[in-house]
């Protein structure tokens, strides 16, 4: 069955008709032409399709578009403001935090979402004191970014880029 979905994508209101089987990922890429959102594994394992959905980082390959009528989506294309890249994007460039770049839009969106979670004081699996303040050590960054794979192996520089923004 088909259904109409209205989405706010990177500040623009967009309407499209989708088959119920269409994932949010395919709706963004194929329906709306937002190709910065990458399809890697298509099974929630690689993180390439990460966006901010209602301000929270999610993978878009494991959710149906038809279930998100009225939602606000921010992709890597929409993170910047005033003609400038987002600080996380600038840090990725500065730190050479990518090689082929395929995972980068997902990495950047995930990092932006992750930094907000840490600012909210949310612990991770490697946080010693669950009720204490969150201090973003490199181990914390690695744990919190474990949902984003980089087959080029730029992890070291990705951690450095995120730490530049976190500090």
């Amino acid at each position, binding site marked *: *069955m088909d*259904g109409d979905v209205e989405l706010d994508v990177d500040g623009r209101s967009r309407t499209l008709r989708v*088959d*119920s*089987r269409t*994932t949010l990922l395919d709706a963004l890429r194929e329906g709306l032409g937002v190709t910065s959102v990458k399809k890697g594994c*298509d*099974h*929630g394992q690689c*993180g390439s399709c*990460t966006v901010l*959905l209602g301000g*929270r*980082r*999610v*993978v878009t*390959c*494991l*959710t*149906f578009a*038809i*279930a998100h009528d009225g939602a606000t989506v921010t992709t890597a294309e929409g993170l910047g403001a005033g003609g400038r890249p987002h600080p996380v994007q600038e840090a990725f460039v500065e730190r050479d935090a990518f090689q082929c770049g395929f995972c980068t839009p997902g990495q950047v969106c*995930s990092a932006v*979402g*992750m930094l907000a*979670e840490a600012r*909210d*004081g*949310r*612990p*991770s*699996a490697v*946080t010693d004191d*669950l*009720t204490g303040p969150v201090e973003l050590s490199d181990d914390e960054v*690695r*744990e*919190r*970014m*474990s*949902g*984003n794979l980089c087959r080029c192996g730029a992890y070291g520089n990705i951690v450095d880029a995120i730490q530049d923004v976190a500090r």
Partner: protein
Amino acid sequence: MIPFDYHRATDVAGAVATADAREAVFLAGGTNLVDRMKLGVTSPDVVVDIGGLALDGVEELPDGGLRIGATARNSDLAAHPVVLRDYPVLARALLSGASGQLRNLATTGGNLLQRTRCSYFQDVSTPCNKREPGTGCSAIGGYNRQHAVLGASEQCVATHPSDMAVAMAALDARVVVRGPAGERVVPLVDLHRLPGDEPDRDTVLTRADLITAVDLPPLPDGTRSLYRKVRDRASFAFALVSVAVVLRVDGGVVRDVRVALGGVAHKPWRARRAEEVLLGSPAEEEVFRRAADAELAAARPLPDNGFKVPLVRNTLVSALRDLSLGER
């Protein structure tokens, strides 16, 4: 993917009625369901979206316990101040599961009802009694490193993949279910089944039974809890073995203990035999070892997963030791 109708439920009764009338599945976070539908493992006629039912609250109960809404996100539950303060075993279990992006989608009810990640169950080109009853089990005689060592059957050796459910089993959680005949409460340890000769049935629920909440009873003062997970890599992997322990030691003696194991059975495995050894005994390493051995006497490892038996023993003993020494 086989075409399906999408129905957005506006109230619990309507969701249950829709699921009762047709070959339906409930959709919450979708992180496992959508994947199974892509793989062809699950092919419903209608998907009933319960995301609009306002079941995402987490509230303290008058008895001091906690009611967790069925669509509360795993990430929000893991960051809830009462969970962090009173139920660290649950916070740790949630935080050790999946990835940040998946925890932001995944829900309490969906986490309980996720299905095994047995590679044969997820591969429609291979026989699997859980996916297609009567076709045989490919894991028995196949690759079975990840599979069960307790409570399995000749029909199925799959494991339940949840971390959260293991913690909830140790917390004596109660699952609130709304079905066509009304509401009932199912102890979490009775929600999931052992495979027996019906491995296609993961739980005691029927198609139109909707989980609306999970209740956690309060814990006595002085209770400590811990979740310890062992896996092939440091993050974003399912458990080979996991241990949830809820323990109260007073005067060097175990006064209250609940132990559940993950990664070893078709359901979150409540270790009653270990608990019997521990309760009323000195909180000492020799007792912890006897408790683990008592539980594992019934273990029946497969050719590839014999390592799980000593791994459970050592993980459980270290968890009991650390908790009784006061480490969380």
